[in-house]
């Protein structure tokens, strides 16, 4: 039997790696991967705590919802990335500056 603290620490480390990727990368696809890592850390917490909810299954159910939401976001985000690439010929978020003044 694995304690919940272990799950929480693994998920915290994973979350911070995702955060680091989001802040430091110059590539929209890698930023997207960072977001996916953070979502997976959250799902790991949901699943670990959902073990203690056999009747209502709250944790596992919302883990499933979070996975579906991640799929939807990724589809939209990749469509946006392709459009941005078509217009600017780069996917570095720092170089996409038409909304700046």
């Amino acid at each position: 039997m694995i304690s919940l603290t272990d799950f929480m620490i693994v998920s915290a480390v994973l979350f911070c790696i995702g955060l680091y990727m989001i802040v430091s990368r110059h590539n929209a696809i890698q930023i997207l991967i960072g977001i996916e890592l953070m979502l997976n850390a959250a799902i790991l917490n949901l699943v670990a705590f959902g073990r203690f909810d056999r009747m209502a299954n709250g944790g596992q159910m919302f883990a499933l919802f979070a996975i579906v939401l991640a799929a939807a976001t990724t589809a939209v985000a990749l469509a946006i990335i392709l459009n941005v690439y078509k217009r600017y010929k780069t996917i570095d978020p720092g170089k996409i500056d038409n909304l700046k003044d």
Partner: protein
Amino acid sequence: MSMVQFLFYLMSFIALASAVFVAATKNLVRSIFMFFITLLALAGLYVLAMADFVAITQVVIYVGGILVLILFAFMLSGKENLNYIAQQQNKFISIGKLPAILLAALFLIVLVNVAINIHPDSLPWIKKSIAYKNYIQPDAAMTENIGVNLMTRYLLPFEAISILLMIALVGAAHLSRKEAKP
């Protein structure tokens, strides 16, 4: 150390090491394929947390769907992209990345502090759930229960998320279609 604990540490080591590699490497293709390994190791962790259905969903949707989508986007976005990445300086710790590392480290300290100080195994509702035997046993088959709950207790979120998924897919198809020449 029991077998389950050994598997837990092995899986979490694989997941964290490959996640660090994903964050550290400059090569986007390698980063995507290591992300694949992270997701598979996380599916193993879900199995160890007695959530086998979620693990299968993870493999089907994340590994089968999202990763293929990311690979498609990467391959469709051309070779200037690759050249640009090759020019970047490749150091995990450099002065330009110091704020990011600082932010992530501070977040890590806060989160680990919370995880240790909250004593999650002695929270009141978890004690109550153990007392009433409301936790999942290793030999339980939960898929049927999940299906029943999905159609009764969580019917409204289920319908809402199905509509949202359809909207997102239609929106993605609309965004990525070719513009007609005016």
